[in-house]
Each structure stands twice: as C-alpha cells, then as structure tokens.
C-alpha cells in the first residue's frame, strides 16, 4: 500500500514538478540574525495570513447558513445566534479574527515602514501590501453590510451617498453598488457578491503576488544603523548574507507559528467571552431614533468627516482617500535607499507617531460622537435630583419644558444628556436672563449650531425655562449679572443663615 502511494506521488510529481518548485522554496534561506530576538519583528505578516485563513474557514461555515436575501438575512443571523449550535461562536470568531487581521496588517505595515524593509528591492512588495490593506478594509465594510441590521442599513446609506458625490459617474456607481437607485432587495446581493467572491478573489490574488515577491526578493535582514541600502550594491551584499543564512523552515517558522497561535488564542477567547457583534434592530428606514456608527476601522473617518466644515466634506470623502492610498503607494518611491534603522530615520518615526496619534484622537471622537444629539435624552434621562429639589413651581415647570422641548438631547445636565451644545448645569452663573432669552429665541448667531426656538415656545414656556436655567448655579453663587445686595432673581434656596 505504502509503495503504491509512493508510486502515485512520484507519478504526479514527475508531471507537476511539485518538488522541483516547492523544495527550493521550503529550503529558502533567511538572514542569520532572524534566528535571534530581532526575528520577533517578522511575525506580524504571517499572523495576518493566519487570521485570513480563519476568515476563510469561518466565512465558509457562515455562508452555509446565511441567506443573502434582504427579507431573510436578518432572520438567518438570529438563527445562527440562537439556534445553530456554535453558530454564535462562528459569527463572533469571524468578526474578531477580521478585526485581528486589520490590527496585524497595521502592525506589520508599521514594522516594515519603521525598519525600512520597503526599500530596494522590495518596493513592489510594499505596493501590493497596500492593495492588500485596501482589500481588507473593503472586506470589513462589505461584511458590516451583510449584518443587515440598522447599522448596516445606515452604513450602506452613508456609503452610497458618499459614492454619489463622485462627479459625473456618481449616479452610475451608486446604481451599480445598490443594484438600483435606492437600497433594496438587490443591494444585499451585490454586497454579498463583493464580500464573498470579488474582494476575496482580489485579496487572494494580491496575497499570492505578495508572497511570491517575498520569496523572490528575500526577507530583509534586521536593520543596523549605518548599513546603507544602495541599489547598486544591495543585491550582492544580500546574496553574501544569505550564504551565511539559516533556512526559513526552522527557527523563523517556529516564531511565526508561536505568535500566530498566541494571536489566535487571544481572538478565540475574546470571541467566546464577548460574543458576536449584533445584529442590532432589524433595518428600518423609518426608525428616527437610529444612531448608526461605522465599524471601528472607519471610526476615524467618521470623526474626521463630522468635525470638518461642510464645505470640505466632498474633498474628504473623494479626494482624501485617494491621497492617502497614493501616499502609501509612493512611500518606497520617495526613498528606496539609505538608512533603514529607525534610530537614523527620525522623520519616519515622527510620522508614525503623528499618524497614530491622529487616528487615535479621531477614533476617540468617533466613539464619543459629541456632535450627535442623544435623541431620547429628553424622555429618558432624569433631571438630576439636586437640580429639582428646592426649585419653585415655575422653575419646576421650566425643567419640564426643558425636557419636553428636547433641549436635553443636545444639552447635558451634570454630564448626562447630549453633548452637541454646552452642559447647562451652571448656566445661571454665566448668562443673564436677557442673554438666555436671546439665545433661546434666536439660536446661535450667524447660523451656528443651536436652532432658534423663539417661534416654538409660548411666552410662558420661555419664562419658565429661563427661570429654571437661572436657578442652575453653584450653591450661594449669584445669577450672572446680579450685584451683591441687589434683589436676587430666581429663588434658589439661600444658605440657612440667610433664611432663618
């Protein structure tokens, strides 16, 4: 039996040339120093690939149950979550391994950038890597749409209206993406095709090229300060280095396996503990209270767009991503020679710090989203008790009007409520009665954030609201504009010694 199998293998090998091709690949040497501790910098690319493998496996599993039809997708997700044994875990793992893949890609890219590994002769490897990043982000976006809940619906609506801003071709692009002019039954099918066939096809093709280039150009040696990359001499030097090299299938591979196993374990634990993401409420275009957020890799863009003046929105949506991708493509062409060690490339280190700080801050803003009103704060967030106690009947009615007119959706009291406008907990100490009336009636001057409420409130409602606002001030502090000894407006309880 064994002999028979051997014969069969030889027969295939003689015709397919598998061993002639693979054997040298498997024995390809890597620089000796990768055997040492510096080799741990080289594990992130393979970890990304491990996550990709998990994505493919879990994705196949999910596709056996998921129904890419607008009227059944949501139900099939519920089925996965609640009925299919381990279905919830499959969804959870697919989400967190996808997130892990993005994280590993970013770390891998950062390492390659910081250590100058993209320099001659590996420029093309970097460019294909950028394409892999673009594909991965595309997978994340289209995957979110397949979740087909409220977030997916509005994410798609936002994405489509962004695409619609492309000059001339905009409507055509939207029509192609959505399979119609509006989000409908075909939209989900289109995104299913993108997520399951088109983008993965591109991704695997690019990955093949990327790996081929890695083998072809060899793995760069860990950088040493003073070792200059010069395209004229690099090949010869590297060739010499490899003669003293060690096989990749050895210590380097063990490091990769160890780190990938660790990364996968962490993701599996997170997936089991945190559970699948969503689906949130079923998609409903009439839901006014929907508060959709993009997936985390896009939160920084959400933050950037929300904080930018409307005049440059289109620029940020259409030109900015092209600039970012273009800048990434051009990295190796700006400098493909010279020092590789981060200690000799302060500009590169500074750039990484600035970029990650910016992304971090914008992501934080995207999570907080202080520009979004809290649509149910008026009816759901109680007025803090100490702002209720001791108020006069008029001030109490004012507090009720304050809630009922939805002021709370933008203005927090003691930090609870919307954050689009300022917190009003101590407003009585800073604005006078007249200023409050003007502000409420006319809104922010010059078409600012706050709308004018003058026509939406009766004089009594205005009177009561202003009385309540004047009463909002720290203990013992006079209303804004009041002079000591003058009659105090509003009737916040005075310290006991004054009333006794």
């Amino acid at each position, binding site marked *: 039996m064994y002999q028979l199998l051997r014969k069969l293998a030889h027969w295939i090998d003689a015709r397919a040339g598998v061993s002639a091709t693979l054997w040298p690949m498997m024995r390809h040497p890597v620089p000796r120093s990768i055997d040492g501790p510096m080799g741990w910098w080289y594990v992130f690319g393979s970890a990304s690939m491990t996550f990709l493998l998990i994505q493919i496996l879990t994705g196949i599993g999910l596709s056996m149950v998921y129904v890419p039809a607008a009227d059944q997708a949501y139900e099939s997700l519920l089925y996965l979550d609640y009925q299919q044994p381990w279905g*919830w875990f499959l969804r959870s793992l697919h989400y967190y391994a996808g997130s892990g893949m993005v994280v590993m890609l970013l770390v891998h890219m950062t390492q390659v950038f910081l250590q100058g590994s993209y320099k001659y002769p590996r420029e093309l490897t970097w460019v294909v890597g950028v394409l892999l990043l673009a594909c991965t982000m595309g997978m994340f976006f289209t995957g979110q749409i397949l979740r087909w809940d409220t977030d997916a619906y509005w994410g798609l609506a936002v994405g489509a209206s962004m695409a619609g801003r492309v000059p001339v071709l905009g409507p055509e692009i939207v029509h192609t993406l959505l399979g119609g002019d509006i989000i409908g039954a075909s939209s989900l099918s289109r995104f299913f095709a993108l997520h399951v066939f088109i983008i993965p096809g591109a991704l695997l093709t690019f990955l093949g090229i990327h790996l081929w280039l890695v083998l072809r150009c060899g793995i760069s040696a860990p950088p040493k300060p003073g070792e200059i990359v010069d395209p004229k001499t690099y090949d010869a030097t590297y060739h010499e280095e490899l003669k003293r090299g060690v096989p990749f299938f050895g210590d380097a591979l063990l490091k990769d396996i160890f780190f990938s196993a660790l990364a996968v374990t962490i993701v599996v634990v997170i997936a089991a503990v945190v559970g699948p993401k969503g689906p949130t409420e079923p998609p409903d275009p009439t839901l006014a209270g929907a508060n959709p957020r993009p997936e985390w890799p896009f939160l920084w863009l959400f933050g950037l767009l929300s904080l930018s003046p409307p005049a440059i929105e289109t620029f940020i949506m259409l030109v900015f991503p092209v600039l970012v991708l273009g800048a990434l493509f051009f990295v190796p062409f700006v400098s493909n020679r010279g020092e590789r060690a981060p200690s000799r490339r302060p500009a590169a280190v500074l750039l990484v710090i600035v970029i990650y700080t910016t992304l971090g801050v914008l992501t934080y803003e995207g999570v907080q989203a202080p520009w979004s009103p809290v649509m149910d704060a008026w009816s759901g*967030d109680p007025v803090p008790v100490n702002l209720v106690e001791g108020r006069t009947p008029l001030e109490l009615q004012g507090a*009720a009007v304050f809630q009922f007119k939805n002021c709370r959706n933008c203005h927090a009291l003691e930090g609870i409520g919307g954050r689009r406008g300022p917190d009003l907990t101590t407003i009585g100490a800073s604005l006078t009665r007249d200023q409050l009336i003007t502000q409420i009636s006319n809104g922010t001057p010059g078409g600012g954030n706050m709308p004018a409420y003058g026509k939406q409130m009766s004089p009594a409602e205005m009177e009561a609201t202003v009385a309540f606002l004047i009463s909002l001030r720290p203990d013992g502090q006079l209303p804004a504009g009041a002079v000591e000894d003058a009659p105090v407006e509003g009737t916040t309880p005075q310290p006991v010694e004054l009333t006794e």
Partner: protein
Amino acid sequence: MVACAAFVGCNDDFPGKPNPADRPLPQNEITDFATLFAQNCTGCHGADGELGPAPPLNDPLFLALIPDETLHAVIRDGRPGTPMPAFAAERGGTLSTEQVKIIAAGLKSHWPADKTEEVSDAAIVADAPPYLSSATILQLTPGATDQASTLFERACAECHSPNGAGGETGYASGGAINDRAFLALISDQALRRIIITGRHDLGMPNYAAPDGRPEDFKPLTSAEIDELVALLASWRRGDAAAGDAGK
C-alpha cells in the same frame, strides 16, 4: 481550540453566547414596563417615578385615585395646558397603542402598595376627594373670591404666602404659585391633582396632611379644592376680581 472547548463543556457556559432575551427589539415592539418607563417617563417624572420636575408617579394616593381610563388617556393624549406631551403614535408620539396600555397598567402595579410612608393611613386614600372634579365650570363670583382667599390662607399660605407669591415663610421652599407663567403651564385638572396628592417627594402636603397648616385644619373637600383651583385660575387670567393676588 474550538474542538477542545466543544469537548470540555457545554457551549451554554460561554459568556459570549447570546441570550435570546437580550435580542434587540424595534422600539415599537418593546413590551417591558420598566424599559418603557425608563425610555419615556423618567426624563420628567424622575428615575423611580419621583423627584423629577413633573409630579411623582410612584405616589400611592395618586395611583389609587386616578381612574384607569383617565390615566390611559393622559399618557395617550398628553395633558393639554401642561408640558405633558401625547405619547401615542397616532397623536404624534412614539408609542404604539399597546405600549400606552402597558405603561398605564404598569404604573398602577409597579410600585408596591406597602410603600405608603407618605400616606400614613389607608383612610386618607379612602376619604380622598375624587380625582376628577364634578364641577363643570370653575368660575368665582366676587363674593366667593374672598371665601376662596380665606381657604387659601388656611391651606396654602404657610408655604406659598397669603397672595401665592411664595417667599420666606418658614417652609421657604414653597415658592410662588401666583406667577402667570407658571399658571399658564398647569391645567386646572393638574392643579386639582397636585392639591389632592401634594408632592411627597418635595415636601408638599396632600389634601389632608396637617404639615404647616393651622391646628384646626380639616382635610380639604372636593368643593373646597374646586374653589382653590378656581382662585388660581382667576390669577392665571389676571382677573380684576382677584385683587392684589396674582400680581
């Protein structure tokens, strides 16, 4: 790893396994009273139905007096003349007919009846004036105004001062109730409700409580409450007959 986990334990043990009970519901399908209350009522009526700007809802006296139909109607249609908005979808609110019913029924049953520190005696509930006034028109003749003013002085002036202007009269926190803006934002029925029930959360006594009232104070009758409401209503209109009060 997955296989290990599958062998080791039942997958119900994982904290990440979604619980069907936590399944997110569309707003109009929520049927849990506590959730509906927290999303729709606490903004004005306070986290536990008290200590909000609007009158407390956890008041056993209030809950005992208000007829089911009236409670349901107030949630559905709001209280015209007060900040209380209509919550039924067909009246411009956000709640389905079913959800309005759930809130109305839930209010009556949510706070256990033994939470009656404020209503010291079941008799107070039993003897309380009806929630709705039997009088159809609350109009004071000039003579009746004096009578109502006298009544006001006995029942309300300790906190709100004789002319309703509030002020530092011992129970300093009473505050002005002769303010036309305040009166424009509270309906006659809401005034009646608050006179009967008081505000146990903010220290306002109910129709029978003796706090801050003369020693010979007797619980207010339905007719007397009508008179008081009529007096306040005349202040609201700024009637000349109301004299100095309301200025």
